[in-house]
């Protein structure tokens, strides 16, 4: 059987098997005398590969459907005429396959001879030398000579010679270097179509095509006059990865050479948590290649993860600790010891003067679980208070609250593979093609297979309509009316009798359901009644609700458009209600899935970053939970919940909160109402910023501790599907210490006695104290690649799907979702509603991506405005406009688009020069204080330059970034 062959290849074997895996009844066949059993529908090529026999191939790759164009993979099958292509031939029971014979060898050699006759023979100076499938295949088939030559009188009849004497080759197409990360060299192209198919099948962008036919065929991005940058290309790199030659090649490989070793690690951008192979020469990172066995991304990536890692080497990165007495002074570079004792003394002094609770920490959703755990431990065990919060406060804290109350856990219910079995997808307040691109690609693949799509978003995002994708219903609600919309959908499901009574009777609390039915059936929740509020046509809403309830496996994916509202928690509860009503919980293809913003925002919540919760979401007031940590840490834990970020800032302005250790987060740029944040920070006596760059918050800092990148440390990230992925150190930290070491040094400077020597010891402590992580060890992660929590005695290999037989909280809880309009209202002075979001090329505050070539796609934030509103205000495409709200004003450029409805404007918050959050207000979610980023009443008017505030801010920022280098 095949088992005696397979062990030749180690676990994690990522050979290209040629064609995708299939599932089906087992079929046994013989390949070159070896019996092999594979699922029905598998290709002969894949069956041979599973038996350890690699059939030569060029146009096949196991992330693409078979194409059958290169004719190199021909085989002989007993009882069949001719030489079928093994990639397109499915296996049958008892089939006898021969992959080698004289005839096959001659045919393959002939095919290769033809390929090579139109390919330059500059292998030694080629960027793909040693990493070229064409080269490998020429070797594999034993190509020794090429008989085919261009005719004498037409010596330029090829695609690679630029000229011959005076003759210029009209067929030669020069290299396209427009993309900042990779080049397209048509001279080396063998027109195998792998790039075109990868763009279509894997990424789903349809930016590439084969232009012309026959000998004229060339790969082309876009249409006539386009290059890669101006085409629809989103630079995901799937084509570069698919290319068997140097035709599509990373510029980094061209410059640095082919890598010789690789380390598997996890991307530090969005919450999808893609696994990557970091490929290196020594400690020089050459390229990032998505890892095909990564369970979140399945071998795909986006422009950020694959290419935008250059920030680690950017000149702005700070590598030495710095201190200053006041924020008016320039920074002074000092030793680690001096910086840490300066920080510790200040914090201790503050605590002596203003009390134990006058200092706190903000944990980072970009750092590892282990680092986050240490930071919250720092405040609980060393500072002696619960003043810890994290950036989840400003994104998914309502998810934690809403799903916790209804289902009993504050996390998504599914894994990403679940999307492959979904029939109806409802996306609410999320823009996956920009925010979570790899998930979007997997979703689009399923949509192209026929799944239905409902999009609830004020803006016509790309997922509503893009090549081969068309949402069945787009409900363009007015910002701030999520609850009314979601409740109206529930109204339709309940009043039309579309709910799943069996599910509700067995899985949910029936009395609560009765109460909920009374509430939701009220005619004031009908789509017709709320149409005036939401702006969503009642007929569309009814049809969408019917589709969701009756269309088969229905899954909801939602993002910050749900949570960042004054009623964010209520909307999450409303979404949870919808899934329970229709029984769409607890099996593959359904569920409620928050799309997490940052790489480890799930993890930072799990690790007890919130002021009221110890790790594992256990309230700090519970004595038995405190006892676990009091014993583990040997200290007493304050039973009173601490301050949330907004409370810290309020308290700072009032003068009772004086010191802050802020790891890997830029609260000044990412939090709402910048004026208030700045005032709070300015009022503190010791702000410690631990980051890669002098971010905006650092303008108000007294101590700067340089951070390390995800490439420079060990640890784990937890992605949006609760998957704990390993982060592996691929190079030494340029700043000298991994972030967890810095936190430990600070704790010890404050008098703690911590002796962690590796993050695995921190994970052991987490596992020992947190039930949902009880089974997690680095050994298990090494063996499994990743696990999804809960991982404990009942689920030793983790939990891909939650709530299968019952909710974590026992019964599911229906809760009423009364719509209460936000206090942020439009009026004569501020007649438009601003909503904010992000864009593919940038991540969060842009601190990382702005320091990469990604600025080629998005050099500044722009304001999207409907042409109708623009005309009323005399605004043209590209004009500078002033964007003002009750909180503040800024200027940026406008772009006219009907993606946004009249009355709504939209911008991103990636660039500090714009500071979109100057205009956002301090309204926030009633339950969790998550700020209302998504609704601000604004006015837009023509402008001719930056506002006074922007100029003052820039001047202050520049002044506060001065650095005096250490005296020599």
């Amino acid at each position, binding site marked *: 059987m095949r088992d005696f062959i397979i062990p030749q290849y180690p676990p994690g074997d990522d050979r290209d098997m040629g064609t995708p895996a299939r599932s089906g009844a087992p079929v046994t066949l013989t390949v070159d005398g070896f019996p092999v059993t594979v699922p029905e529908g598998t290709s002969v090529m894949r069956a041979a590969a599973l038996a350890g026999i690699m059939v030569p191939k060029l146009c096949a790759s196991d992330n693409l459907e078979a194409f059958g164009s290169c004719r190199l993979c021909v085989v002989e099958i007993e009882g069949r005429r001719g030489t079928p292509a093994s990639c397109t031939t499915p296996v049958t029971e008892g089939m006898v396959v021969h992959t080698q014979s004289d005839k096959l060898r001659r045919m393959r050699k002939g095919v290769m001879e033809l390929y090579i006759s139109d390919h330059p023979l500059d292998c030694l100076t080629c960027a793909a030398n040693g990493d070229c499938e064409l080269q490998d295949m020429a070797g594999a088939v034993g190509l020794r000579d090429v008989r085919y030559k261009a005719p004498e009188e037409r010596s330029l009849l090829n695609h690679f010679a630029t000229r011959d004497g005076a003759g210029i080759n009209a067929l030669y197409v020069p290299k396209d270097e427009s993309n900042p990360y990779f080049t397209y060299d048509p001279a080396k192209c063998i027109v195998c179509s792998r790039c075109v198919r990868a763009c279509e099948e894997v990424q789903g*962008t*349809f*930016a*590439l*095509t*084969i*232009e*012309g*036919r026959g000998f004229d065929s060339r790969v*082309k*991005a*876009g*249409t*006539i*006059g*386009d290059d890669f940058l101006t*085409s*629809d290309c989103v630079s995901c790199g799937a084509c570069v990865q698919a290319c068997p030659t140097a035709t599509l090649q990373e510029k980094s490989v061209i410059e640095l050479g082919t890598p010789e070793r690789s380390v598997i690690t996890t991307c530090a951008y969005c919450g999808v948590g893609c696994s990557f192979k970091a490929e290196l020469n020594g400690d020089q990172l050459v390229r990032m290649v998505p890892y095909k066995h990564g369970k979140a991304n399945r071998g795909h990536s986006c422009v950020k993860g694959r290419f935008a890692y250059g920030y680690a080497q950017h000149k702005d990165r700070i590598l030495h600790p710095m201190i200053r007495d006041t924020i008016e002074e320039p920074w002074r570079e000092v030793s680690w010891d001096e910086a840490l004792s300066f920080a510790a003394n200040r914090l201790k002094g503050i605590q002596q003067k203003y009390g134990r609770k006058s200092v706190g920490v903000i944990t980072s959703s970009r750092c590892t679980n282990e680092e986050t755990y240490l930071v919250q431990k720092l405040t609980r065990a060393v500072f002696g208070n619960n003043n810890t919060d994290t950036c989840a406060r400003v994104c998914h804290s309502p998810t934690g609250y809403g799903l916790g109350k209804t289902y009993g856990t504050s996390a998504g219910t599914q894994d990403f593979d679940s999307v492959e079995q979904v029939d109806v997808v409802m996306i609410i307040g999320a823009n996956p093609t920009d925010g979570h691109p790899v998930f979007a690609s997997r979703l689009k693949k399923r949509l192209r297979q026929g799944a239905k799509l409902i999009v609830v978003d004020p803006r016509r995002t790309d997922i509503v*309509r*893009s*090549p*081969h*994708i*068309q949402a069945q219903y787009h409900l363009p609600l007015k910002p701030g009316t999520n609850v009314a919309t979601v409740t109206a959908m529930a109204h339709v499901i309940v009043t039309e009798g579309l709910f799943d009574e069996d599910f509700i009777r067995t899985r949910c609390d029936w009395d609560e359901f009765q109460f909920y039915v009374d509430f939701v059936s009220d005619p004031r929740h009908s789509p017709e009644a709320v149409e005036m509020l939401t702006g969503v046509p009642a007929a569309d809403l009814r049809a969408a609700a019917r589709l969701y309830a009756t269309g088969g496996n229905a899954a909801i994916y939602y993002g910050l458009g749900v949570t960042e509202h004054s009623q964010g928690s209520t909307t999450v509860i409303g979404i949870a209600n919808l899934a329970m009503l229709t029984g769409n919980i607890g099996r593959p293809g359904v569920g409620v899935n928050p799309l997490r913003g940052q790489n480890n925002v799930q993890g930072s919540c799990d690790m007890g970053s919130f002021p009221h919760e110890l790790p594992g979401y256990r309230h700090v007031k519970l004595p038995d939970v405190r006892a676990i940590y009091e014993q583990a840490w040997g200290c007493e834990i304050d039973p009173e919940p601490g301050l949330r970020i907004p409370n810290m800032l309020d308290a700072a302005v009032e003068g009772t909160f004086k010191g802050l250790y802020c790891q890997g987060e830029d609260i000044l740029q990412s939090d709402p109402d910048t004026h208030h944040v700045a005032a709070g920070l300015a009022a503190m006596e010791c702000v410690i910023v631990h980051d890669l760059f002098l971010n905006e918050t650092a303008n108000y800092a007294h101590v700067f501790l340089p951070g390390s990148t995800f490439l420079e440390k060990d640890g784990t990230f937890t992605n949006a599907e609760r998957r704990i992925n390993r982060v592996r150190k691929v190079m030494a930290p340029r700043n000298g210490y991994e972030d967890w070491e810095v936190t430990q040094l600070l704790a010890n400077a404050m008098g703690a006695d911590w002796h962690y020597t590796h993050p695995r010891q921190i994970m052991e402590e987490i596992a020992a104290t947190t039930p949902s992580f009880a089974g997690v060890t680095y050994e298990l992660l090494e063996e499994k690649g990743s696990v999804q929590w809960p991982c404990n005695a009942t689920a030793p290999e983790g939990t891909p799907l939650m709530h299968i037989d019952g909710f974590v909280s026992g019964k599911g809880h229906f809760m009423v979702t009364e719509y209460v309009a936000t206090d942020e209202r439009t009026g004569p002075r501020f007649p438009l509603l601003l909503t904010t979001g992000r864009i593919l090329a940038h991540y969060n505050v842009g601190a990382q991506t702005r320091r990469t070539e990604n600025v080629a796609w998005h050099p500044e934030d722009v304001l999207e405005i409907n042409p109708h509103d623009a005309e009323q205000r005399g605004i043209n495409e590209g004009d500078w406009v002033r964007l003002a709200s009750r909180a503040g004003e800024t200027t940026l450029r406008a772009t006219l688009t009907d993606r946004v409805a009249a009355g709504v404007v939209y911008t991103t918050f990636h660039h500090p020069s714009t500071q979109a959050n100057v205009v956002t207000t301090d309204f926030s979610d009633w339950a969790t204080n998550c700020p209302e980023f998504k609704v601000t009443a604004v006015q837009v008017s023509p402008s001719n330059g930056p506002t006074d505030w922007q100029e003052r801010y820039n001047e202050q920022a520049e002044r506060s970034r001065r650095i005096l280098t250490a005296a020599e």
Partner: protein
Amino acid sequence: MHVNAPAPTEEEIRSVVTPLASLEGPLLPMLHALQDVYGYVPQECVPVLADVLNLGRAEIHGVISFYHDFRAHPTGRHVLKICRAEACQSMGANALAESTLQKLGIGWHDTTANGAVTVEPVYCLGMCACAPAAMVDGRVVGRVDDARMDRILAEVGA
């Protein structure tokens, strides 16, 4: 459409193609309709077709460029296609084509200076029994020799 006509507007293109949108496999009928109206497939059509059919721009370009019959440029008032397939070549089509192009002083795909005629190669008109064959504005002509070609050229005013 003549050489100096203004490029078609998006509305014009939409009005040509949208009536065909309900067909099964509508892209090729749309391209034919555009070529019928304009004499070529203007580049401006690509984004419009991509939008109407919800396809990528690249896909539209791939289809247009695959078919030699879809032209990217306006033609002269008449189009003369000379068959260059095997049967016609064996009956002297190459010499006929060469002398025709020489007479007109143009190359393949070019239009005469007076805008009268564009000459294009074609690979088999299904007229092998009457080779060498040609086609003038959709009308096939068999057994084309120099004399007959001269008459054709005179007819189209070249």
